[in-house]
């Protein structure tokens, strides 16, 4: 039982905290908020699909430190991101670049809307609007009802 307790404490110590670690935060609150916003756009490169904002991994911690340092130096989001892309590749960005290569990803949902709307408009033009005229049978039925 005591061994279990000891293991519990060791297990607890082995686990690092995520982004909101008071020890690492920037003193300037605006800069810290800025850094936090950036964290959610950057992938923890070794994790299973987590941003460095959420991840407990050591790499994520190092990346957070790097981003914080650059934010403190006053570099822009664009500069920080291109620095990260240079080192780790586009893989590190949670938001894929809006580049010709990724055009399919960004545009296909909207192309579907356009194509669908086009088909609908064409069909609406080809088919007569329903209020146009009653068929002869319907006219006869209507007359019958009116006479009644």
């Amino acid at each position, binding site marked *: 039982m005591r061994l*279990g*307790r000891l*293991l*519990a*404490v060791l*297990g*607890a*110590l082995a*686990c690092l*905290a*995520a982004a*909101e*670690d*008071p*020890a690492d935060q920037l003193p300037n609150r605006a800069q810290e*908020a800025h850094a936090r916003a950036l964290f*959610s*756009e950057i*992938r923890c490169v070794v*994790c*299973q*699909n*987590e*941003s460095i904002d*959420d991840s407990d991994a050591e790499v994520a911690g190092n990346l957070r430190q790097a981003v914080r340092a650059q934010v403190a130096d006053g570099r822009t989001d664009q500069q920080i991101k291109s620095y990260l892309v240079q080192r780790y*590749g*586009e*893989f*590190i*960005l*949670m*938001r*894929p670049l809006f580049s010709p*290569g*990724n055009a*399919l*990803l*960004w545009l*296909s*949902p*909207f192309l*579907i*809307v356009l194509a*669908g*709307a086009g088909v*609908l408009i064409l069909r*609406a033009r080809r*088919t*007569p*609007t*329903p*209020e146009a005229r009653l068929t002869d049978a319907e006219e006869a039925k209507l007359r019958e009802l009116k006479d009644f």
Partner: protein
Amino acid sequence: MTAELGSFALILAFALSIAQVALSAGGRLRGSAALTGAGEGAAAGAFLGVAAAFAALIHAFVTSDFSVANVAANSHTAQPLFYKITGAWGSHEGSMLLWCLALTGYGSVVALTGRGLPWKLKASTVMVQGCLGVLFIGYTVFASNPLLRIATPPVEGASLNPLLQDPFFAIHPPFLYSGYVGMSVVFSLGVAALIEGRVDAAWARWMRPWSLVAWSLLTIGITLGSFWSYYVLGWGGWWAWDPVENASFMPWLAATALLHSATVTEKRGAMAAWTVFLAILAFTFSMLGAFLVRSGILTSVHAFAIDPKRGTLLLEILGIAAGSGFALFAWRAPSLPPGGLFAPISRESALLLNNLFLSAATVAVLFGTLYPLIAQAAFGAAVSVGPPYFNLVFGSLMGAVLLILPIGPLMAWKRGELVGVLQRLWWAALAAIVAGALVYAFHEPRKAFAGTGVALGLWLIGGTLTELAERARLGRTTLAEAGRRLRALPRGAWGMTFAHVGLGVFLLGAAIDGTGKVETAKVMAVGDQIDVGGGYHLSLDGVGAVDGPNYQAQRGTLSVTKNGHPICTATPERRFYPAGGQTTSKVALCLRGVSDVYVVFGEQRLGVSGSPGWLVRVFWNPWARMIFLGPLLMALGGGISLSDRRLRIGLPKRATGAAGAAVLGPAE
């Protein structure tokens, strides 16, 4: 011995599924009621077989029979009985058996209750459902049998993942799978309708209850999963656009589109081919989800253990089932008779637009989920597609859906009048815009996002209630008369009201929680205070050791105060499970109205002053509970709609039973 009996029952179920296909097909071709009846019996038998296998698996878990490989890998003698039972579906193999249980369960209900269906359609439906049974039970028997023994059983099991030892996660898979697999009936009915060449209003009416059941259960399943992720993972969020989450969301989106297009087919006989297409698509997405979660092809925070061989098999099943469904669609759909005509401004058109944008949003989720694979294969580039993409693309497309949503129900069928509808909605629009502007003026940060979300949410709620008031003629007649009219409304109308209001409630919660969340963390010694903002303070009163049934925990006791007044005591824990050597945290939630004070108890470490303390993370999650309340209202709406008189089993029976018997008669 029980495990062997279970395996035997499972193999029997496999054989009965084959019989179900053969008998139903034979009965359908030869017009023999005896054969189709035998096919229905086989469907019920297959369900009993899978149920027996499932019972055997539960028995193995309850008795901690570690000679069964699956039990040894996912259970432990010290686990509480409840988590021993739920461990049965905590693994890949067990959850596939649960899938088969749901599949054959639905199949037998269709076989035994669908007396109102024309016999040809029913025989074909039972046959298609049998084909799905053959594929999935076959897969379970030959590639993923959870009842297999191991040669050298361990003395102790490896324990269920502690994160899954939670009441919400225990009931999440049964709901989710009932939802996923409920789409199989819709799929079978769709394929059967294509085989019979008949898709009309009556078919839509038979299909609708099944899509409602599946959609409601899936809604509950996803919500439970989301809530689990919210309060077990300790990250303060509720949705991460992770591939596994997307896998459950895509069938839901397809089913939502289906519910709406089926209304048009049912009421007006139009859009029949599109409705059948969605019926096939919904279950295709369910199968795609099953494949994505189990193949390890995408990286996700919560996938099952990876096994490429099984992944390939599941992909083949997906290809066979969906491929033949869509091939049949391509062949038969052009010959379906065109439905009723409607003007560009009409309720049909509004629902068509809803479907257009919903489909595009579904494609965005599908494409975003699969794009890393596509990019890797096509250009060899490693690309991540994360929440920023989904929020932007999916969000803007859904924005369009939400904008037209309140207009649709007020529009007349066939030929509507937009100006008149907008005149009736003016106050809802005004309320939404004013509230959105107020939020924009006073909310920080990301006020544009919050303002838009609140405005859209109120537009939905206000617009939906307007429609209800219109139906009751509220304000134009006496209150008593309005009350009488409300009571006389069909259940389907109430269901729609609940579902649409629920969506509005969800939006309000997501907008305010998503932007107003406050996160603070501090290394606290006993007696220290932490300021959360909004007047909330927490002080650490003590830390103690707690022994659970199969874990040891450190529990912090924190008193929460608002402006000096005590509100509640939070007792978050940090649990250590010696069986697997894992540490998890138990979040403490302090409910304030619909908002949460969310406390996570972290590791022990040195504080700023050098004295030891515990890392405590506190979130203020404003309106967070509305995120979960909204979808539950939507599911409730589905349930209410299901109880509508016109959907009750037996009602169409009187209308069609005689005709069906007449057709069957001469052929015999």
